[in-house]
Every structure is written in structure tokens, then in C-alpha cells.
């Protein structure tokens, strides 16, 4: 079952494009990564799904219900963390979170969960929000999203401003929520965090979805890597670029060659086989590298081709 469905979602701010023709869905229990640089339309998508913005076209559905702007569609079942989390600075964290919980169902379970989370994140709930550091304010935001144990978590850059230890705790919380059946929509431009918790991700560029696929597919697309160590004393041979199209040298070390290639490894391996090889490794292409490919100028045309046919295929 799809918990979040977005169909042909388009949002224009006057003549400026927010997002255009987005179609994707997120299944129940899935942690879906939503990637893109600043201004690519991540927050616009989220605000449309939350019903805070009125889309210019298309629609979104949450937990099977069509999102009507301004009608708080299924908000009791959603935990939301805005990208720019700001809360009443004059209130203590406990009071502010209590007020927000009271706008839904502020039951005992929520209060107990709040205290548990505060202890886990090492957050002093009795301090005024205005006196907290940026990182601690972000912790308040995390508590806000998680305190009522929602079925859907919509998190816009949840680990922004957090130190690595707390970041890990937040990622654990996300994993635990998903293990408990919650659906997580995680917007971020921190690629390592997306690759560590998400199975599938969508990549936005200038308001359009340019990729929608499992993380492993995103990483494997485009260039692949080989690192070859030659037998000691072997002169590292020059790469015949003219005979091996799509192959390039990433790095050359004494006795070793780090090669990037596209397509199959057949031609590269046949060429390497001519020399005495000590060992071969296939370094993992990082998500960062895959991600940057979508934003390199020379990748623009390829990405444009992908605009309407993300590799996720079925859009789910």
C-alpha cells in the first residue's frame, strides 16, 4: 500500500518554478530519500504534501486521502519537521512541545514518549527554547516530529545542525520508526545520511525529478570503478583512451591504476589482462559521486532525457 502518493504535482510561485510534474509514491514502512541541492524544490514538495501550499496542478494523497490545502489532511497521523524549525522562544521546550501536542492528541503516551526521547537526545526540556543552541533547538524539532509516534514521518533535513553523535541517534530513531511500520519521507542534501537509512531515493533538479530508484541503482549508474595493482616492478601502462571509449583514469599511483569506465568491464579487463596483475578491487561509487553527476553541467542533457522517465520506472 502506498502511504504517500504524488501525481503530476506542479507548483509555480508566480512566474518562478517551484516543482513541475512530480510523480512518485512511498510505500508503507519505507524510508524514502528525497535528494536535491538548495532551491531544487524539496521543501515545496513537502509543503504541498502537508497541504501548506496550494499546488498549481496535480495532487497528492496521504494514507489514502487526497490532500486538500489548509484542511490538515491526516495531520494527526503525521509527524512533521520543517526545514526551518522555529518555535516560540519564550516557552520552555517542554511547554512548547506540550502546546503543539495539544493541537492534536496530547495523551499520556505522547508525554511519556517525549520524556524518553529527550533523555535519549540529552535535551533539557526545562530550558527556554530561546536559550537553546541551534543544535538543541533542532533536537526539539526532532522531538516534535516523533513525540506522538506518527504513522507517517515527513522530515525536512532532520539532522541539520546536529553533531555526529546525535545525528546517529536521529538516524536510529528513523530506522526504528520504519521497523515499527511508519513510513518516512526524508528530505536531505546530506547524501551519506540518505544512503545509510534509505532503500530508495528520488533526486530533484530545478524542480523536476531526474531520478527515482533504489539507492544501489543510483550509485551504480554511470561510471563504475576498478583499481588495479600491477606486479611489483611493472611499468604502469598508459591507458589507450582512443581504443577504450568511456574509460578514464581517475588516479595513477606507483604500480597502481584507478580507472573509471561506463558500460561493461569486458574491454577494460581484456586490456588489463595483457599485463602482470597483482590484484584488482572494485571500489564502491559513493552516492555523492552519483549525485554530483546529476548536477554536473555535462550531465544536464542526460538528466533532461531522464526527466520524464525516472529509472524507478513505475514511480513507486
Amino acid at each position: 500500500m502506498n502511504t504517500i502518493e504524488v501525481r503530476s504535482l506542479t507548483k509555480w510561485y508566480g512566474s518562478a518554478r517551484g516543482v513541475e510534474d512530480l510523480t512518485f509514491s512511498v510505500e508503507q514502512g519505507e524510508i524514502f530519500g528525497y535528494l536535491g541541492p538548495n532551491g531544487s524544490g524539496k521543501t515545496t514538495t513537502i509543503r504541498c504534501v502537508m497541504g501548506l501550499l496550494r499546488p498549481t496542478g496535480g495532487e497528492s494523497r496521504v494514507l489514502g486521502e487526497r490532500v486538500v490545502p489548509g484542511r490538515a489532511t491526516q495531520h494527526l497521523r503525521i509527524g512533521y519537521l520543517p526545514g526551518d524549525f522555529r518555535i516560540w522562544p519564550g516557552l520552555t521546550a517542554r511547554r512548547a512541545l506540550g502546546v503543539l501536542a495539544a493541537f492534536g492528541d496530547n495523551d499520556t503516551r505522547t508525554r511519556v514518549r517525549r520524556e524518553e526521547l529527550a533523555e535519549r537526545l540529552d535535551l533539557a526540556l526545562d530550558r527556554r527554547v530561546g536559550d537553546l543552541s541551534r543544535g538543541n533547538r533542532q533536537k526539539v524539532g526532532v522531538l516534535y516530529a516523533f513525540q506522538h509516534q506518527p504513522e507517517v514521518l515527513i522530515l525536512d533535513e532532520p539532522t541539520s545542525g546536529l553533531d555526529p553523535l546525535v545525528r546517529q541517534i536521529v538516524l536510529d530513531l528513523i530506522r526504528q520508526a520504519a521497523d515499527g511500520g511508519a513510513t518516512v519521507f526524508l528530505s536531505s542534501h546530506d547524501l551519506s545520511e540518505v544512503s545509510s537509512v534509505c532503500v530508495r531515493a528520488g533526486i530533484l533538479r530545478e524542480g523536476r525529478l531526474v531520478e527515482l530508484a533504489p539507492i544501489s541503482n543510483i550509485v551504480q549508474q554511470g561510471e563504475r570503478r576498478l583499481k588495479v595493482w600491477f606486479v611489483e616492478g611493472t611499468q604502469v601502462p598508459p591507458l589507450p583512451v582512443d581504443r577504450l571509449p568511456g574509460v578514464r583514469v581517475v588516479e595513477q599511483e606507483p604500480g597502481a591504476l584507478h580507472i573509471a569506465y561506463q558500460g561493461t568491464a569486458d574491454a577494460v579487463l581484456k586490456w588489463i589482462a595483457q599485463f602482470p596483475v597483482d590484484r584488482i578491487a572494485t571500489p564502491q561509487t559513493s552516492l555523492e559521486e552519483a549525485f554530483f553527476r546529476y548536477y554536473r553541467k555535462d550531465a544536464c542533457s542526460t538528466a533532461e532525457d531522464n526527466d520524464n522517465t525516472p529509472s524507478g520506472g513505475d514511480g513507486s
Partner: protein
Amino acid sequence: MTSASRPKFPFALLGFWLRRILPVWALIALMIFLIQIAVCGIVHDNQGIKTLLNFLDLLPSFVKTALGGEALQVGNVSALIAIGYQHPLVLLLLMLFAVGVPTSLLTGEVEKGTMELILSRSITKTQVYVCAGALTVAGMFALVMVMFFGTFTATRIYHFEEPVSLYPFFRAAINGGLLASAVGAIALLAASVFRHRSMAVGVAVAYLVVNYFVAVIAEWWPRMGFLKPATLFQYVNGPRIFREPAWPVGDMCVLAAILIGAAIAGGVIWHRRDLPL
């Protein structure tokens, strides 16, 4: 939307906002209450009245007109007590609340970024607007009731040579409450339109100031008399309320129409507007 998932009325938001505005409301109410006591203290004896009238004679004629005009005479105690209802300080306090509350609740939360949090909970945009409007109007009527209670209390504290009928004061208070609520609705409309509180306050105050000066000019310069119906202040006619026994139904209807019209227009704009942008 299914009825099962329709958000309940957010009494929690109403309570939260009420606690936020209560200190300001209480301060304004106290000042208005004390002004009524002070006015009654001045006008309860003839010597005080004479001193007051001599002072008013020194001021420009439109000031005396604004405070009651020819009705301000020795022996007309009701008109003199009613100075407390038309005193610029009282009007200023009422307008402060009328403009400050809706702009603080709506635009203030938008500007602080907390409106996004409020709307991410189980509260619709219309409910947020209704809460702000309800607190503004209820707060205004509570203030005018405090004003009336001030008069009531003062007539029990001070001895007047002739009996003072409180009923015209009650009518004047309700009429004044409608005027202040209409101003509140204009401020609500401004708060629905603008993103920054300073802009919303500025527009609402500008509207008020223009209305006030048009009312003064139309009163003071006969050739500009045709402008009278264009100002809000035309619809609170103190001397007539004290002179005639009936309720000023026509004036009240105009004010109620402005209140409802501005509130509905603001509600439509608020609902259609993208938030939190």
C-alpha cells in the same frame, strides 16, 4: 475529507492564544476602567464640571465636538460622564487592542515561523482564522463591558445630584464595541493579506487615521460634510445615543456589515493564501 478525519475545533489553540493576549487585555481593561472612575470623579460635583468645561473651551472646537459638543453643559451629567467613552486615550486603547491582537496572532505567527507548526497539526487554516477573529471580537466586547462596568462602579462610588441612568451607557458601550470590532475585522483582513506584521499594522492604522481625520474634517468643515458616511466614526453617535431612548439600529447594522464583510474577505484571502510564505 471523511468526517472521521475532520479536525475538531482547536480549543487548545484558542486557550493558548487567550493566555498570550490576556496580560495586554487586562492592562488595557484596567486603564479603561480607571479612566471611567476618574471622569466620574471629575464630573460628580459642579466645581469639577466648571473647571472641565473651562478647560474644554480652551481647546479647538472640534475636540469639544468629538467629546460631546453642545451636550457638554452643567446639569447634563450623562453627557459629561460619556466623555470617558469618547476620550482619545480610551479610543487609542481600544484601537490598540483591535489592531494589535489579530495582527499578532496571524501575521505574528507567520513571521515567527510558528504558523507552519500550528498548521502541521490537526488544525485547519479556517479554524486558525476563526480563533484569531473570535478572540479579537470577544476581547473587544469584553473591554467595552469593562468600560460600562467602570461607569457602573463610579456611579456607586460618587454621589451625583441627579440620578444617572446607566442604560444609555450600556447602549453606547455596545455600539462602541461594534465599532472597535469592525476595526478589528479590518486589521484581521490586513493580517490575512500581508506577510509582515509591521505592514499589516501599518495598513490597519493608516485606515484608522484616515477615517478619524475624515470624520474630524467632515465635522469641522461643512463643505466636506458629504464625507461623513464614509467614515467608521460616523456610526457611533454619542449625543444621539444619550438623547434618544432607542438603540441606534441603523448605525449598528452598518458597523456589523463592515465587521462581517471584512472578516469574510479576510477569511477567503487567508484560506487561499499559501502559507507559511
